């Protein structure tokens, strides 16, 4: 298992955090232009240094800023939300006007242009603000935070992780990932039980590869992830995987497979996610009626973030109101007989290679074991197992039948034991008689008592 390198490397991706700004950047030699009115940043200056806090320091020439690690123990700009002076003021004297800042825009720009950032710049703005001193403590902090967003020289560089990547992509535009919230992604990955060495199948549409990225991160380079694609992959379809900056080894479990190449699916877990619950409600009903899964649940999650400050703790004033819906269940063994439309000892399904799923929808839930036999191979098929053999080439098969029960139980004229055993044939006659008797009742009653007797037959015959 590889460890993410502890120091920043050239051409790797880093998460760049400043007050009110969080994004993923590639560490290039060339200085980066981040946003309007902000000088260029030379990320390469952080190469070889450990992740953590940095200060933006102006280069000697040109308006480019280098990143210098913050000294151990040195104070960072205090988070403005934390400064509590204890003086209570209110806003009775504040008049709304655009003249409170004495410095003009040009004067401010000249100063940032000459390398003035951080605390000094903020102090200058505060000094020249006519209203700052009369603002209430709360609005002073709000003012400072706004100015910090513009002029802060504190930067934190972090290695990319699924947590940061999913938060950044979601915060930028939730709809670009079908509103797949980071907490929903977290629950999805855990519910699906993703762990190192497992084999998983993902079908995701328009989530920028967030689910794929999440599964890959938790596979740790071992196991298999089959990604089903429904159409031609667009660029950016796997944006999250790229942003996560996974090594070649960690990406190795990923295989993409177009949907049309698949013959038959047999997923172990089925965990679709949707931002509206109706398609999933339908799947929920289907899963339950097929009886192939237990603990089938349709859930959504309600997440609230809190501002926690001394005497000022409350939920954030806006929150996401839609987590999407998760459908989950655990596959269990079912009796295949329910799915293969048996009549007598045969199945109604004619062509197993190209089954008519419209006619036989339940067949999709049947477990199918396939194998190829070579000359000289033998295959043991236990009694009562439905099977289908197809010759791929000219072939001769030699069959041997074991009769597991006492000899007299088998039909004397049937050396293969293919026919119903003697007691079954006799019981079938009794069933015919029973049916004839039931049919003397009105249809509704016949159906009711028929079902009752069928249950008795099933229960009693399976007992000891």
């Amino acid at each position, binding site marked *: 298992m590889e460890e993410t390198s502890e120091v920043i490397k050239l051409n790797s991706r880093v998460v760049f955090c400043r007050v009110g700004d969080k994004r993923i950047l590639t560490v290039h030699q060339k200085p980066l232009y981040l946003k309007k009115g902000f000088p260029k940043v030379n990320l390469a200056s952080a190469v070889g240094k450990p992740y953590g806090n940095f200060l933006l320091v102006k280069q000697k020439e040109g308006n480019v800023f280098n990143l210098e690690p913050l000294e151990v123990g040195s104070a960072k700009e205090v988070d403005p939300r934390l400064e509590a002076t204890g003086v209570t003021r209110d806003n009775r004297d504040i008049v709304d006007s655009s003249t409170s800042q004495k410095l003009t825009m040009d004067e401010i720009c000249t100063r940032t242009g000459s390398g003035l950032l951080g605390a000094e710049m903020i102090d200058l703005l505060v000094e020249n603000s006519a209203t700052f001193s009369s603002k209430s403590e709360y609005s002073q902090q709000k003012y400072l935070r706004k100015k910090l967003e513009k002029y802060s020289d504190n930067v934190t560089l972090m290695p990319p992780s699924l947590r940061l990547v999913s938060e950044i992509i979601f915060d930028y535009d939730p709809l670009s990932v079908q509103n797949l919230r980071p907490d929903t992604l977290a629950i999805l990955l855990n519910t699906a039980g993703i762990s190192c060495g497992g084999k998983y199948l993902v079908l995701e549409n328009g989530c920028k590869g967030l689910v794929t990225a999440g599964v890959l991160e938790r596979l740790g380079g071992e196991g298999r992830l089959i990604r089903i694609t429904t159409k031609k992959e667009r660029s950016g379809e796997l944006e999250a995987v790229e942003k996560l900056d996974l090594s070649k080894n960690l990406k190795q479990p990923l295989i993409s497979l177009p949907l049309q190449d698949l013959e038959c699916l047999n997923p172990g877990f089925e965990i679709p996610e949707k931002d509206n619950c109706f398609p999933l409600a339908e799947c929920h009903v289907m899963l339950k009626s097929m009886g192939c899964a237990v*603990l089938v649940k349709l859930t959504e999650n309600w997440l609230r973030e809190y501002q926690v400050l001394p005497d000022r703790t409350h939920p954030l004033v806006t929150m996401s109101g839609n987590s999407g819906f998760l459908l989950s269940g655990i596959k269990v063994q079912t009796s295949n007989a329910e799915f293969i439309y048996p009549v007598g000892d045969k199945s109604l399904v004619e062509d197993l290679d190209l089954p008519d799923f419209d006619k036989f929808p339940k067949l999709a839930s049947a477990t199918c074991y396939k194998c190829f036999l070579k000359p000289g191979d033998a295959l043991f098929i236990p009694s009562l197992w439905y099977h289908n053999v197809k010759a791929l080439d000219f072939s001769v098969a030699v069959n041997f039948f074991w009769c597991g029960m006492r000899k007299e139980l088998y039909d004397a004229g049937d050396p293969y034991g293919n026919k119903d055993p003697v007691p079954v044939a006799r019981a079938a006659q009794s069933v015919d008689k029973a049916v004839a008797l039931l049919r003397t009742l009105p249809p509704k009653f016949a159906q009711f008592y028929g079902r009752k007797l069928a249950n008795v037959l099933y229960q009693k015959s399976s007992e000891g």
Partner: protein
Amino acid sequence: MHGQRCIEENSVVILYVDFKTLRVLRVTKTVDTKDGKKVPNIYQTIYGPLNVSEVIGKPYGARIELKKGFVYLMFPSPELWTLALPHRTQILYSTDISLIIANLELKPGKIVCEAGTGSGSLSCSILRTIMPCGKLHTFDFHDQRVECAVEEFTSLGYGEFVVAKHRDVCQDGFGVELTGKVDAVFLDLPHPWLALTAATKVLKNCGRIASFSPCVEQVQKMCVELRSNGYEQLKTIECLVRESVVKTITLTTPSLCTAKNRTEEPLPKRMKTDGSDPRDGGEATFFSMPVTSCAGHTGFLTFATCMKNRS
């Protein structure tokens, strides 16, 4: 763990009786009676007795027919374990667990510290995520809880990936041998700030910490301490899960024109449970609504990043 698909002797199985009844079953051929005799292991369920030795060799997920019904033999995944485990303390449930795993940025190979161990509900999820090359160091100040947890971790197959110790981390820390080696720390303690100095000591640069507290007062104190110990990116959240019930109903549009003709037909004695009149026709649709009663509060989760160049 992925290769293990069949139940062996001494395996742990979660017996699925119905969606509300999940039981931990230890697969042994015999059990000891009070007077020291060995008798065949028969497990009683509402559907009749289960002869435990018969489940050996069956695949996980297998359906076992009993006298009056059937049960499933489930693999003890951390999610099912959480629903079935013997409670020694209050436990964390899957929603909070998922958020803890994601926000601690856990993946294979990570080194994690947990205090306290409690009933081991979270521990199993952590272990599944960090296996096979990561390690979980879990601590509890209650001696007997640690003993039980060790026994359970071993029987679930996590033994070699976990170190469980009886220790009060608030007083004695996580151990000098872990200094600067831990990727993530999880605290579920009544006074989590008392373990913060110890946590900071063992965490790597940019390591993550999570703290679970049911009360907001604990959260406030913890956040103050986190900030003054050089932690950044603080985030406090609360997450509740809401389950929906799904039904098929028939929505109908009563037609006034046919109302007259209809009276000629006798009304069925009992209406369908959803109140619709079958004579109206109409299409069956799926209908879902949240369950009427659910958990209102579990606890607050606080996450932060340890910045070594500030602490």
